[in-house]
Each structure stands twice: as structure tokens, then as C-alpha cells.
């Protein structure tokens, strides 16, 4: 068995208004694995993602990234190792130009000059966005924004990528380009999505989250083939989509 890239055990977390968003959340992800996190709206998927780099701190339970606990004094290194791509690209792209935005993370790590430029360039090339480097982020198309958002975390050379609903709002071509970019990356990936065909295409394993905990997991094709399970957690395959047939084509 490969080394664990992510290990979360017994996470419990409530928002200040008292709402319990995580309630005994367990998940282990091996290095290099791609895991889909499925589940209805409000299940706690985003909240879980924000625990992976210590933006939220659990009341109970532990999170480890590789050999590091997600807590001080290792928080800075954890945040380098975990690249979080937020659901809304506009929340992630706040600098005046794409280039500066991609440079923001590595610059916070202390990189400057040629080394910094190199990182920025490589990250933009990896997502196929080198041509928009000098544009303002808010002038980009939805697909470009999503790929640049991915570049902003790739520039930190993370070990684990966490993507929150990466295909929402993308047109089919933008979605296709994103799949290709993600499949070309070697990092461990946790992909939160409602797009079940996308999960099947990208991830070997799928986990269903509901009411703040993991309620089912297995090979993506098997999970998606269990009509009863999907229905119980408000998940639906697109009309006419047969996961058995689709995964055979892989």
C-alpha cells in the first residue's frame, strides 16, 4: 500500500451559528490517488476541504497531510503542500493581473526574481493559460478563470490538490480542457463535484458525503452503479448515462 497523502479522522466542526457541518468525518487518501467527493448540497464537503489546510479548525478529530499534522507550527508548510482551488474562481483571483495572482502564493513562500518567474511560467503552461498572463483576471472567460485558479495553486508545487466543484459553470469545451489538465497532473487529487460523469472520468475512487460524514465509498464505477445509494443521497446521473458502459470505454 502506498503512503497516505491525507488522513482525516473523526472530524467534528460547527459554524459559529451552531450548525454542525462535520460530524465524525473520516477519509484517507493514498499518495497519487484521485478521489471524488460526492454528496448533496450542504453535506459538508466544502467545510471538509477548508480543514485540509487549517482554514477551519476542528473541535474534535485530526487531519494530517503526509507526515504533518494540520496545526501550528506546521501550518505554513501544510498550506504549501495542499493546493485548494475554490468553488468560485472570483474568490481566488484577487490580484490585478493573472501573473501577479499566480505569483502571490510562491511569493508568500519567499520566492523572488527568476525563481518566482519560473514557477509562474511553468504553472501557467501546465494549465494552458500562458497566453493570458498579463490580462486582468476578471476579464477572463469562465474556463480560463478556472484554469488560472488551478495555476495559482500549482505554482506552490503542492502535493495534494483539492478542487471544489471545478466544473460548475463551465461549457463543455472548458470542462474537457480541465479534465485533460487534471489527468496530466501527478498530484494526489480530491475532487468535490456534482458532475458524476466527470468524477467517473477522472477518479478511480468515489466517496459519498452526507450530514457531515462519509456514508459510502468504493470504486467510482461501482458507487455510480448503485442506483439505490445515489437516490438516498440526492445524487443523479445525467439522463441516459450508464456508468458501466462509460467506464468500459476508459
Amino acid at each position, binding site marked *: 500500500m502506498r503512503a497516505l497523502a491525507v488522513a482525516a479522522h473523526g472530524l467534528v466542526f460547527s459554524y459559529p451559528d451552531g450548525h454542525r457541518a462535520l460530524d465524525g468525518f473520516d477519509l484517507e487518501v493514498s499518495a497519487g490517488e484521485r478521489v471524488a467527493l460526492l454528496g448533496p448540497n450542504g453535506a459538508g464537503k466544502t467545510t471538509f476541504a477548508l480543514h485540509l*489546510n487549517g482554514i477551519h479548525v476542528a473541535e474534535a478529530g485530526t487531519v494530517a497531510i503526509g507526515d504533518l499534522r494540520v496545526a501550528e507550527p506546521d501550518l505554513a508548510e501544510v*498550506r504549501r503542500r495542499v493546493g485548494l482551488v475554490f468553488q*468560485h474562481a472570483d*474568490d481566488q483571483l484577487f490580484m*490585478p493581473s493573472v501573473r501577479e495572482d499566480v505569483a*502571490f502564493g510562491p511569493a*508568500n*513562500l519567499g520566492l523572488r526574481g527568476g525563481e518566482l518567474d519560473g514557477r509562474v511560467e511553468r504553472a501557467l503552461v501546465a494549465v494552458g493559460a500562458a497566453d493570458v498572463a498579463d490580462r486582468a483576471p*476578471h476579464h477572463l472567460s469562465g474556463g480560463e478563470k478556472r484554469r488560472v485558479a488551478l495555476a495559482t*495553486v500549482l505554482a506552490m508545487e503542492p502535493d495534494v490538490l483539492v478542487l471544489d466543484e471545478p466544473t460548475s459553470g463551465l461549457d463543455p469545451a472548458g470542462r474537457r480542457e480541465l479534465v485533460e489538465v487534471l489527468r496530466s497532473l501527478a498530484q494526489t487529487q480530491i475532487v468535490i463535484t456534482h458532475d458524476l460523469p466527470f468524477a467517473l472520468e477522472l477518479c478511480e475512487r468515489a466517496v459519498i458525503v452526507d450530514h457531515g460524514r462519509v456514508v459510502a465509498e468504493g470504486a467510482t464505477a461501482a458507487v455510480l452503479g448503485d442506483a439505490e445509494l445515489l437516490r438516498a443521497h440526492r445524487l443523479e446521473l445525467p439522463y441516459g448515462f450508464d456508468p458501466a458502459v462509460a467506464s468500459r470505454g476508459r
Partner: protein
Amino acid sequence: MGAGHAHALYQHGHSTVHRMGPEAKLAAGFASVVAIATTPREAVWAFALHAAVLAAVVTAAELPPRFVLRRLAIVLPFVAFAFTIPFVAGGEEVTVLGVGLSRDGLWGTWNVLAKAVLGASVSIVVAGTTEEARIFKGLERLRVPVAITLIATFMLRYLTLIADELRRTRVAMRARGYAPRWLWEARPVASAAGAVFVRSYERGERVHAAMLARGFTGTMPELDTRTATRADWLRGATVAGVVAATALAAAVTT
């Protein structure tokens, strides 16, 4: 306010003025505005000179005069106001076309007009030749508190997004037959504003989370290292020097 804000502020270009370091350009602009504002109003020739210098800078900046004029529309409310001054002002009267007007008031009109138009033109030239982000970078180098310049940078980044959100809510309301005419029909507008505020604030929290996720610890990394050169400062000092000298000469002679 209003329509004027919709126009593009920055005119892309590669002129000498565009290439100037923002701190030199801003310092020169500020000094010029102060000189213009303190020029005695009786020295009409001095305002003509100021205008000539500005026109030269606009030409050097390769800004279309139409761009400058269109953006000057922002001072129109004050222009309209300026023309009422001679009617309300006191003092010695002169008769113009059979109407008794205050002589001092007429000077007041001229004063407001000349300074509002020239002062606004300076801002228009600076903003028209400097990318927004670099303006704030320049201010920071001129010792304006970093908190102010960063808040301003973020404000402009999210302004269109939030304005669009407000506009969309408005369209959605109109689509459902809301056509208010009186203040007591304004409650839905306020509800929309409240909802947009909540969404904006929550977005602020998410942006903060996104910054933390990329290693933000409270200070922004310095990325733009293109500072003003000696030549930039010299150019700025020349323009501002001419304007200031004109103002000084005007003050001495009147």
C-alpha cells in the same frame, strides 16, 4: 457620480507619459493640482498657460482629446452650479444683457469653472495613462498607508462584480413588474442592497480564506518592482515646475 463611472479609465498606450513610474507621475499631478487650485483667479493668463501645459501633456500621452472631454462630463454638475453664483452672490453689481449680476460672483463662476476643469483634467490624464494597480503602487511609494492602497486595489477588483450583482437584482425585480416611483416603494431596493451586502461580506471571507490557503500572513508580497527612474522624476518635475512657476508668478503679479 453615475454615468461617468462606467467609462474605461485607462487608455492603453506606450507613450512617454504611460511609461513614467507611477510615483513620479502622481507626485507631479498632485503638485500641479495644488498649484492650479491656488492660482489667483484674476490671473486669467495663468489659467491659459496651465491649460496649454495640460494640452501638451495630453498630446505627449497620445490620449484622444475626445476621451479627455468625455470624461470631463463628471464636472458638469459643478459647472451648472457655477453659473448660478452670480445670481446669488452679493457685492458690487454689473449689468449683463440687462440682468444685474454680482461682479465678484462672476469671478466666482470663472474660478470654480477653471479650477474644476483643469484639476479634473489632471486626474483624467494620470488615470488615463496608468493602470489602476500601478496607481496604488505609486501611492504606496509616496508613503500613503499600505492599508489604504490595498483596500483600494481590492475595491476596484470587486467593484464591477458587485455593481453587476446589484444591476442583475434590479433587472430581476423589474422583470417581475417592479417599477417604483416613490420613496415608500423603495423597500425591495433596500432588501436587494442588504442581500448584496451580505453576499459581498461573505465573499470577502472566502477571498480571505483563499489568501490564507496560499500562505498569506498579513502582508502582501512586493511584486511590482518597476520604480520611477531619475528621468521620470525629472519629467514630472519639469511639468509640475512650469505649472507651479506660473501660479507663483500669477500670485506675485496680482
